């Protein structure tokens, strides 16, 4: 597979502690030239800290690294880049108001003059099947195109080791295929790739070796091809996983009906919704997929009532509710959980009790004669904490103090505990560990079984395929016609999400 087994990078006994948490404890692994090596683990397992140490952004407390046989201790990214290490970030490394060429130049040590650089960007990007126009503003590019900018920035430095942090989270399946072709080509040229992801099927398709981290420690190494995704997931979590159980349910009446919903986005660089139509019956789960930024946030706002539309565009139980606000819709039975936890779903500096009140006040009748019933509110909050296994010292702590996964359990639990008729959730398990994600999905399915109509918007296709009855995709603000999940292939889903957005398969040579 790898052709040569010459060791490129060896990490030995690396430890890094932050106040209160050990991010990496005695981590060792090695990568050979031309090897595609996966780094697996849940959120908070220490993957990011580890690669930041390899890229010189974080200094290890103890331990050794060797790069091509030499001791390797990069003190800053510049030093790492000079040794031949390049990194494609998950977030935070592009400048929206700068052009593609300027963005590329910022990631290079000694960039050639702009005109020459533009030419090289063009030729390299075409050689690898990732066409890019160097003069365009990054803010105007799609998520997939932005990622190409990052990859090209790395490729122009002829890296020996390419680190990729969750590169496929923003891509359609077709785009993923093209990316993998490019990566395999790079590997065949001798570049080692360190690939971070928690999409296990992708890792089985791409990687030669895998190192699995749990709570900062290496718990296993394996050859992904020889293991099933299920086995690797259990190694990551350290427990046996039970997939959510779903009973075949009789469908009830239509609870949520959206007709001809068009609305302008209130978000800068946002995506307006264009003629969205769908209906969800009681007991049905509709999954809505799409690459980030294709109208998911706007759809949630329009359904929750934060964006108002024509009265007839949104009907709850047949009543036109499009022109009413969130509280009227809650009263009618629709609850919504947005994607952004801090600042949208929860007020960061308010306690869990207060946050429970904010959304539960209408359906749980927590206000009597204009006065807050704190006793009932406290019981409601405690109930959510108990039912959804929210790990917190108590309901008096500020929402900000909870970890992302725990807060997610709380805000989703808060909506699901209001005996809703219609549930709208955007990214229900974003940043939540696998065990908690499974319990959230199970809770959603339970509500559906009790007769709620559910709309789940998510970028995680596996999640949608697991819990949804019907499937639709948002692409540039338009929603495809919902189709039953049964019998859908990944290819069809990819096409619904917009296909490969003008990418092409890598050509030979450069």
């Amino acid at each position, binding site marked *: 597979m790898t052709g040569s087994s010459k060791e490129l990078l060896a990490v030995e006994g690396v430890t890094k502690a932050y106040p209160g948490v050990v991010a990496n404890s005695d981590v060792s692994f090695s990568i050979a030239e031309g090897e595609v090596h996966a780094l697996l683990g849940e959120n908070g397992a220490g993957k990011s800290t580890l690669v930041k140490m390899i890229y010189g952004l974080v200094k290890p407390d103890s331990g050794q690294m060797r790069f091509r046989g030499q001791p390797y201790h990069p003190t800053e*990214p510049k030093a790492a*880049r000079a040794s031949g290490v390049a990194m494609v970030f998950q977030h*935070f490394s592009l400048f*929206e*108001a700068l052009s593609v060429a*300027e963005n590329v130049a910022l990631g290079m040590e000694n960039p050639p003059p702009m005109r020459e650089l533009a030419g090289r960007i063009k030729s390299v990007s075409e050689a690898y099947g990732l066409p890019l126009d160097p003069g365009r503003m990054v803010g105007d590019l799609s998520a997939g195109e932005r990622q190409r900018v990052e990859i090209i920035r790395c490729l122009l430095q002829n890296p020996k080791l390419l680190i990729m942090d969750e590169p496929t989270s923003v891509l359609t399946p077709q785009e993923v295929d093209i990316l993998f072709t490019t990566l395999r080509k790079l590997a065949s040229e001798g570049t080692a790739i360190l690939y971070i992801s928690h999409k296990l099927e992708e890792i089985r398709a791409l990687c030669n070796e895998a190192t699995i981290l749990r709570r900062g420690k290496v718990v296993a190494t394996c050859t992904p091809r020889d293991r099933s995704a299920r086995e690797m997931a259990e190694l990551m979590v350290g427990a046996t996983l039970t997939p959510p159980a779903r009973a075949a349910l009789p469908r009830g009446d239509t609870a949520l009906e959206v007709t001809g919903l068009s609305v302008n986005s209130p978000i800068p660089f946002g995506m307006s919704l264009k003629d969205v139509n769908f209906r969800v019956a009681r007991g049905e789960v509709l999954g809505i997929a799409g690459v980030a930024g294709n109208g998911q946030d706007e759809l949630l706002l329009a359904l929750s009532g934060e964006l108002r539309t024509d009265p007839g565009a949104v009907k709850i139980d047949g009543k036109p509710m499009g022109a009413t606000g969130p509280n009227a819709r809650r009263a009618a039975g629709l609850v919504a959980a947005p994607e952004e936890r801090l600042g949208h779903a929860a007020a960061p500096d308010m306690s869990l009790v207060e946050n429970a009140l904010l959304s539960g006040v209408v359906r749980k009748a927590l206000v009597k004669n204009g006065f807050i019933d704190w006793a009932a509110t406290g019981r409601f909050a405690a109930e959510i904490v108990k039912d959804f296994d929210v790990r917190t010292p108590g309901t008096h702590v500020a929402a900000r103090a909870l970890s992302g996964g725990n807060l997610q359990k709380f805000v989703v639990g808060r909506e699901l505990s209001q005996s809703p008729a219609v549930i709208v959730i955007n990214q229900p398990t974003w940043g939540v560990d696998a065990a908690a994600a499974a319990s959230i999905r199970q809770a959603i399915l339970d509500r559906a079984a009790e007769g709620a109509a559910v709309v789940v918007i998510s970028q995680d296709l596996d999640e949608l395929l697991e819990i949804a009855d019907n499937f639709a995709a948002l692409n540039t603000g338009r929603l495809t016609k919902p189709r039953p999940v049964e019998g859908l292939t990944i290819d069809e889903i990819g096409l619904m999400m917009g296909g490969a957005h003008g990418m092409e398969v890598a050509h030979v040579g450069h």
Partner: protein
Amino acid sequence: MDLGGINPAILIASLMVASVPIILAALGELVVEKAGVLNLGVEGMMIMGAICGFATAVATGNPYLGFLGGALGAACLSLVFAVLTQFFLANQVATGLALTLFGLGLSSLIGQSYVGIKPPLTGTVPLGPLADIPFFGPVLFDHDWMVYLSIFACGAVWAVLKYTRMGLVLRAVGESHDAAHALGYKVVRIRVLAILFGGALAGLGGAYISLIRVPQWTDGITAGAGWIALAIVVFASWKPWRILLGAYLFGGITVLQLNLQAAGARIPVEYLSMSPYLITILVLVIMSSGKGKAALNAPASLGQNFHASR
């Protein structure tokens, strides 16, 4: 050619002089804001430059050393801002306002013994026969060297921001400090240097007021020029050449209002003195309306503090 007692050649010539302090201070602030820092202390730094420049010039008898002293004095004051906002992560708006108040007070304290003194004179640049050309002579070729320097500085800032790596890194830091940090750029160091540069230019502008434009020392001599400079940065939508345009426009209004008063015009001067700020408010309204923001190319991290751990 007279327009109600106003001679256009003299009007243009005097508006070029009137706008020099604003151009310099606004250019400095532009660089600071391009690096993502909002320093509202321009007025305070200018007046520190005015008194430090004045004192240095009087003490040494050399106006050129005076300008240097002004730049250094204001840069020292901006260092206070830099330390508070970049290392202690103080709120930039509050710190900037405090800097202005502090600068006004400190300058008045230092300046007590300088009231009523004449500073050494700064001569005009000898451009020989060019100055004798009718109309264009007095308008373009009969100024002190700071007028030319301010125009040159516009070109220099523009070229550095657009064509050099230093400029690109500066813009990158102002655009997204997280991304710049991830790529290994020293966000805090770059911002501190930008703040010092902005302070020095504001100081130069202040020294120009006390050494050439007025020239003498009185309390509160800058009279709001720093606020106009801040407004012009927004008005110019962070583009150096538009700073020149904006400063001549606003400087022109200042001069015009004096001339109109002298000529006994019917327009109340208050309207004219209000107008720069009205225009700025309009620009801000347009800017805050969704897509206008990107079109006006405000640095995306403007006013946000950066800490490496986040």
